[in-house]
């Protein structure tokens, strides 16, 4: 999972370069700005100023939009980090069902906490939504993972390898987001893992 890191300190899985998400229609818009500048230049020096202004203005727009979307991405990453932390702490102290022990209902309860703590950033409609909850205990690994708003799928593997051996819980939250700089953009995947020791007696 830990491959490349972008300027937000987030991970881009599978080694993608950020610019792979660039979209063609924004290049078209850039061309339109240039055309406006060229049309003005035929009227003398003042036209040159317009071209310069247009060029600078476009840079400013790119910068402002980039900052705003970066800030949004930072906020989203912060939210899913917080969600992972809240859910892992909740899971660490959540008692097993007295009859069935750690079961899908237990995992589902943790998943719900993660979703609620993310304040909409892990809702079903969010692009690239990912919530994985796993518990390691006397029954080995039990996992529930939900991707892209689909049904939660149970399994018997960890959310990610951690090299630990004690009873513990893993919560991994994730979503996709887009950094937009007006004339180009790229998608990044935000991922927030959290591992906590399981504190209850099974």
């Amino acid at each position, binding site marked *: 999972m830990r491959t490349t*890191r972008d300027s937000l*300190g987030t991970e881009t899985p599978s080694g993608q370069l950020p610019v792979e998400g660039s979209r063609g229609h924004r290049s078209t818009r850039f061309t339109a700005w240039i055309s406006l500048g060229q049309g003005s230049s035929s009227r003398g020096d003042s036209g040159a100023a317009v071209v310069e202004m247009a060029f600078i203005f476009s840079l400013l727009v790119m910068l402002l939009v980039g900052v705003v979307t970066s800030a949004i991405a930072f906020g989203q990453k912060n939210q899913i980090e917080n969600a992972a932390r809240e859910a892992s702490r909740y899971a660490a102290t959540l008692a097993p069902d007295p009859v069935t022990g750690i079961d899908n209902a237990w995992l589902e309860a943790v998943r719900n906490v993660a979703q609620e703590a993310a304040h909409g950033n892990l809702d079903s409609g969010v692009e690239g939504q990912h919530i994985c909850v796993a518990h390691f205990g006397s029954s080995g690994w039990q996992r529930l993972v939900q991707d892209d708003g689909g049904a939660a799928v149970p399994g018997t593997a960890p959310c990610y390898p951690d090299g630990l051996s004690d009873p513990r819980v893993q919560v991994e939250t994730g979503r996709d987001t887009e950094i937009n700089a007006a004339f180009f953009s790229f998608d990044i995947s935000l991922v927030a893992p959290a591992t906590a020791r399981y504190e*209850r007696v099974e």
Partner: protein
Amino acid sequence: MRESFRSDRGASIFMLAISLFLLIGASAIAVDIAAIWLDRSTDQKVTDAAAAVGVLVAVETGGQDACESALNYVAVNTPDLNTVDTTDCVQFDKICNPDNPLETEWDFPAGRYEITVVHPVTDTHDLMTSGIVGGTAQPLVDDGKPCQRLAVKMTSTRNSLFAQVLGFSSGRTSVHTVAKRIVGDDKPPLNLIVLDRTGCNTISVNGGGQIVADPVVHPDGYLVGGLIIADSDGSECSGTNGVINVSGLGSVIRADGPAGCGGNPFTFKGFPAEEGCGTIRVLAPNDPGPCTPPACSNSGGGNAPNPTPSPLGSRYTRAPADHRYNCYSNYTTPPLDTLWAAEELTTANQQNIDECEETATRDPYIYDLIEFVGPRTDGKPDSTYEYWKAERNEKCNVDSNITINNQNLVIDCNLQITSGKSVTINNGNVVFDQDVTVQGALKVNPPADKPWTFFRGGKLTKAGTGTLEFNNAMVYMAQGSSLKLSGSGSGGALIWTAPTAGDFADLALWSDSVETHAWSGQSALTLRGIFFMPRGIAAYSGGGSQEQTDAQWLAWNLTVGGGGVLHIAPGDGALPALSDRAELIR
């Protein structure tokens, strides 16, 4: 005009350049600050998880392991850290002494982080007093004791992404978490605990004897493994002696549990179980497994304990019993003059048990009883009592069957019940002042609302073929009292059951005596309840067929020999093993 126009154009470009510079600079700073705050949020997640696991491991297996576990969780939870070097965790003490907590604080550099682990965390540490952020000191109410706290601090240095052009090369954030160990609400059963704080051979089996901690059927229908705890640090051990000692061919110390550990399988109350699938824990330092001094020793053909003992990171103490029966959770001010009865209770025995809910209104049950009965020199506790000899003219050498109903008694002589004769006391409290020897039968049935029998001194002796019954009774034994309950394969019985309700529910014996409490296998044996001998030597030997018991044993130490097989199986009302939880307090 033309000159002026040219001058104005220059000004606007200049202004634009300044504005652009400021805008770009502000954006750069904003992005970098956002990145730093995101780091801070992530770091807080890391320190929370690390401190929580650290404080639990500190209680379980000590400070060094706690440090290692905390750092391992730091590595797992930090995106750009793979490992943290835990070598210096040896700086942390294995055992935290609650009377003299030695605070250790150590820095562990790792990549762009510096991780600091603190254990124990004293009340005056910056992380506890808020001095680190310049705030006013936070109250220490409910913050536990230093040994019950562990702190992790994480300082992160992030190189600026864009703000370097403005001279801001990096930013630093620091977050910390202080976690406190609390008693969880899980109640795993506890079969046996020996409380000798420093001794050797505190659980000793020889001559083919056996101690078996049976599993327990949870009310919800599953099996929970047996648990044996030795609370000695082994400081009195020397040479090859261990806190747990198994010597002699066929001798066994074992804790059984639910199937799955690879032991010999058997069926326990309908559930698949296996030998050695329970837990044996020893406080003494060094790795106790498989059986090495000072934690463990075996010789002369004795088997190593099964399972391999695991470390206990902090003292267990007698606190759970004090808490339940004396509503007593604070040892800093003993509740009353404990007279001749109780040991000095010190903070060394204190556990972080939640305050007794009824502290404001509830009296300490045991100590109230001690005050009520008083020492031997006080005579009768009140006017409802009659002396066995001085007032009732009953024989002290009993040669007939005597039944006394609805009368409280002080037996003020050496009571000897000869073979074939019996004394039965129904619905009355009895205070024994001197020795009691039972060759025939002694049956005591105290009133349901005051279900106790009191030994102010003397030795209670039961002959092999004698019968002794304490039915639904809590037996209190003062300092100087002792027990010797022999058994036989050809008659006699020992029936000793705790009250099922009231102040002393589930408590069969509370002994403040340092004397020996000796038991033997019986042809008929029923033990049910908590047998609490925190200063007493418990001994069990062979003789007669031993039956399954619902008894929990808490003693200073325990020796089993002579082929005796002691199965220990706590009943429903037994004192629970304290489970641990972490609470994040700073």
